């Protein structure tokens, strides 16, 4: 039923992506804005401060916000050009309903009628197949207020257990690993702790392209004397000038961490006092890494043994250090094990919970942190409470004025929801701020499942690739059209401020959700008048939880350029650095700094297993995927911004010259990359900056250019994150340019 209503080219012509460039008022010289609005970037988890120039209800440009401490006016190209999203020709300004005979397959529909149709479809499906037959896919770019509302909407209004979010594709391995080791899921340190570190260890993080502002911290640390160690299969721009580069074979990170720990034990580069007083489980871990000799580690990881020894020596002998990682070690079917391996070498060094000693994952999405703390994750309730925990259920149920028994049990991850669609268990879908047709692995499967739905409603401000399959599209709001909070990379809660009103029939997303709730006739707890009311309830719901926001107010945020949670009371300053030895927390209650009843961190045996799909004679090359600096995630926003598209117009496959020579592929050749799940044809870029056994394709594009046609849906058993970073492919020079090369602009699909 939810098949795309017409040919892709027709939809593109009507709804884009088309490229927007500066024009009109935005290009006029000397135009004075009506006002500057202090807010934050709408893209990655660094959440750089930015001032938007507003004139006549239009964002016409930006002015650096140099006082904001994290980025001090610095911005990446996406932040600079983000303002081109507003007043974009592709912007949805009215509700749309599927109409296969209309241009582009959709026709405008009255907003109220669209809400009515949506509510009727939900009621019909739930009446016939049960409450769980409707699923919700939410997003980690939403404000925390919206994510809180989405969780409440699913569980209290729809009464479905099936809600999950696109942060599932981002940081959940880090979150799960952090909870297992520390009892809390948050970056442990402010980035300023990097500046005084002796060693900065970066594993699987293309910092320069995915978190560019962070490079300034890393390189300032280097200026201050730090050794920089980068682990990556590619020489990324941050790796180019590091002190030690470890070109790990994709999917083998945990072996490296175990090998480092082996050497730390062998040379007694351990903090015995810290291990004794503040951790448990070291003996079992030490036993498990006995087998990870440098020789074996080198063999498995593909890194020279002397480099492994050098890394261990620098790490082991440092007095201060900061270890950070990102999707490169997390996007694996054993991502949690990789993360635990990283945490183990941090804990064994004892260098955490004090100045210049830190550990953090690099948040990918705008609200990747806050977006998973307050109830849109399938197993969590607000305050990072567990949905399966009776006490946690009771607390939130009381705030929500419902019986704990009425709350659904934990649901399933977003990929599993598509498997439920396959089995006919989920028949209706509501999505907001999520583009699974591009961002989920093996997306040919995702397309078939969208086609199978009885009813699909998408809320978005552009008709994203997945929303093309919708029965109803509701026009949502851009970040600058609403207010609320997000939690950035360091765990700091910051304030997004409204700059302009939504155009036409577009609505703030929280209004749309509440309109649907009202149309269904289940308004209990869904009658907020503004985001501040939602935030105030969220504060109560989080009180006493691990992610305690109860002492944070919008005024306090603005007065302090953000407040780090936990912040349990209004006179509490927040907690920029976790695990300080004198610190208290609601779980340990002065027993120790870590968030377990005994206050001690846990060493966990980090088991090495190879990637789910190993290379073989048929598919002999490793594919790894990632990002480029001018595009963001599934490209719904950035593939519409002309200057950003011009910077990197289309996906290319990076190939080492040795591999390229063997395959007879030259720079710029159209090259077909095929896996067991699909194939794409893109241009080759021949570079010595990638391992010869590995190729790289960025994943921001859709359809025939989607790297996720190739990737595998293998998932980590604990975090359920997909294995985007490793699958087996074969490459061949294409006999001709692909058909799309003549039909489509570079950003389109």
């Amino acid at each position, binding site marked *: 039923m939810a098949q795309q209503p017409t040919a892709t080219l027709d939809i593109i012509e009507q709804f884009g992506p088309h490229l927007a460039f500066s024009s009109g008022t935005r290009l006029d010289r000397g135009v004075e804005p009506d006002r500057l609005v202090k807010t934050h970037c709408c893209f990655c988890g660094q959440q750089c401060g930015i001032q938007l120039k507003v004139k006549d209800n239009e964002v016409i440009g930006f002015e650096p916000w140099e006082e904001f401490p994290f980025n001090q006016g610095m911005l990446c190209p996406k932040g600079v050009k983000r303002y081109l999203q507003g007043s974009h020709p592709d912007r949805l300004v009215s509700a749309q309903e599927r109409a296969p005979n209309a241009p582009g397959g959709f026709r405008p529909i009255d907003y109220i009628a669209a809400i009515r149709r949506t509510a009727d479809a939900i009621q019909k499906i739930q009446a016939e197949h049960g409450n769980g037959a409707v699923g919700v896919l939410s997003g980690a770019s939403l404000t925390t207020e919206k994510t809180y509302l989405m969780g409440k909407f699913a569980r209290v209004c729809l009464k479905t257990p099936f809600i999950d979010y696109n942060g599932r594709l981002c940081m959940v391995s880090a979150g799960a690993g952090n909870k297992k080791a520390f009892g809390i899921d948050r970056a442990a340190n402010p980035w300023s702790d990097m500046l005084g570190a002796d060693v900065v260890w970066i594993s699987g993080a293309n910092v320069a392209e995915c978190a560019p502002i962070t*490079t300034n911290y890393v390189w300032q640390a280097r200026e201050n004397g730090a050794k920089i160690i980068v682990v990556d299969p590619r020489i990324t721009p941050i790796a180019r000038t590091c002190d030690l580069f470890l070109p790990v074979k994709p999917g083998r990170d945990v072996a490296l961490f175990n090998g480092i720990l082996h050497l730390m034990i062998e040379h007694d580069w351990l903090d015995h006092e810290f291990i004794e007083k503040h951790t448990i489980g070291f003996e079992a871990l030490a036993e498990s890494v006995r087998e990870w000799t440098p020789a074996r580690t080198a063999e498995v990881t593909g890194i020279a043994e002397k480099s492994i020894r050098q890394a261990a020596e620098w790490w082991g002998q440092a007095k201060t250090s900061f270890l950070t990682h990102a999707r490169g070690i997390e996007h694996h079917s054993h991502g949690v094990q990789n993360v635990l391996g990283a945490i183990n070498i941090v804990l064994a060094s004892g260098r955490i919970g004090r100045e210049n000693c830190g550990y953090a994952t690099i948040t990918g999405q705008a609200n990747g942190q806050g977006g998973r703390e307050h109830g849109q994750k399938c197993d969590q309730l607000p305050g990072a409470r567990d949905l399966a925990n009776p006490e946690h259920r009771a607390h939130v149920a009381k705030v929500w004025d419902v019986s704990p028994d009425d709350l659904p049990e934990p649901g399933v991850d977003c990929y599993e929801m598509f498997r439920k669609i396959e089995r006919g268990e989920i028949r209706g879908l509501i999505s907001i701020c999520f583009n699974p047709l591009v961002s989920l692995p093996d997306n040919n499967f995702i397309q078939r499942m969208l086609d199978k739905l009885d009813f699909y409603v998408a809320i978005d401000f552009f008709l994203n690739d997945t929303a093309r399959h919708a029965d109803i599209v509701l026009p949502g709001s851009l970040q600058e059209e609403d207010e609320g909070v997000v939690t950035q990379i360091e765990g700091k809660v910051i304030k997004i401020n409204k700059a302009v009103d939504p155009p036409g029939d577009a609505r703030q997303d929280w209004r749309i959700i509440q309109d649907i709730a009202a149309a269904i006739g289940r308004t209990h707890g869904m009658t907020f008048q503004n985001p501040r009311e939602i935030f105030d309830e969220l504060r109560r719901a989080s009180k006493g939880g691990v992610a305690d926001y109860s002492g944070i107010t919008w005024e306090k945020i603005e007065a302090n350029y953000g407040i780090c949670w936990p912040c349990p009371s209004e006179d509490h300053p927040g907690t920029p650095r976790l695990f300080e030895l004198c610190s208290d927390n609601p779980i340990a209650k002065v027993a120790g700094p870590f968030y377990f009843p005994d206050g001690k961190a846990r060493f966990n045996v980090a088991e090495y297993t190879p990637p789910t799909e190993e290379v073989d004679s048929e598919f002999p090359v490793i594919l790894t995927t990632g990002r480029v600096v001018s595009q963001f995630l599934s490209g719904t926003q950035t593939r519409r911004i002309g200057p950003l598209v011009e910077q990197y117009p289309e996906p290319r496959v990076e190939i080492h010259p040795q591999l390229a020579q063997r395959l007879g592929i030259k720079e710029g050749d159209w090259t077909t990359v095929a896996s067991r799940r699909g194939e794409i044809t893109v241009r080759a870029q021949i570079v010595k900056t990638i391992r010869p056994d590995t190729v790289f394709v960025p994943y921001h594009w859709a359809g025939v250019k989607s790297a996720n046609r190739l990737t595998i849906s293998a998932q980590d058993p604990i975090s359920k994150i997909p294995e985007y970073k490793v699958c087996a492919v074969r490459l061949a020079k294409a006999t001709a340019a692909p058909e799309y090369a003549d039909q489509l602009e570079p950003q389109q699909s």
Partner: protein
Amino acid sequence: MPVPDTKYFFIDPNRCIGCESCVQACSECDTHKGHSMIHLEYVNRRESPQTLPVVCMHCDSPTCAEVCPADAIKRTEDGVVQTARKPRCIACNNCVLACPFGVPKMDTHMELMMKCDMCYDRTSEGKRPMCATVCPSQALFFGTREQIADLRPRSRPINEFKFGEQTIHTKVRMMVPREATVNHLDVTDGMFDSGDDPQADDMMAATLYELPIIS
């Protein structure tokens, strides 16, 4: 109001991450809306992701102005070399060909040489140039000598460059490793010599042949 003489523009190629934030931000500057006066070079993408932002060096004796037959390129008293004056520029490209740093670009549509004027509308009001403000890795930095000395203890700024017989001093400083000596290469150093590495000679010979320096 002139650009404060305590503030300098520093370029640190070691820090450049190739993100083009400078390029995107430059086109937002009010004096040349929509046009970017800075560009990014890949040194050799096949070998390395090393990139370099190329911005006007604001020479003390600007070659571009010296070769301009129409006297269209002016240097302000505070040392900022500005875009060619529209009424005077004859789009002859002399400046483009002469600049040893490869900076001036001819806008053929407007028949005007346009180049970085160090965000004169911003710097003359005490703000930093747009590119140096947004640069996420601070490969571009605008500030005092004391600030850069404090921030970059491993590097030092240089502003003297040699091109053959020509020595140029610039308002813009380039950061180089503190311990390294700065060598000024002469093209003849790389020309064919039977005692040198034959592979290197072949490469240089091929390069020079393409450049029609030798026949």
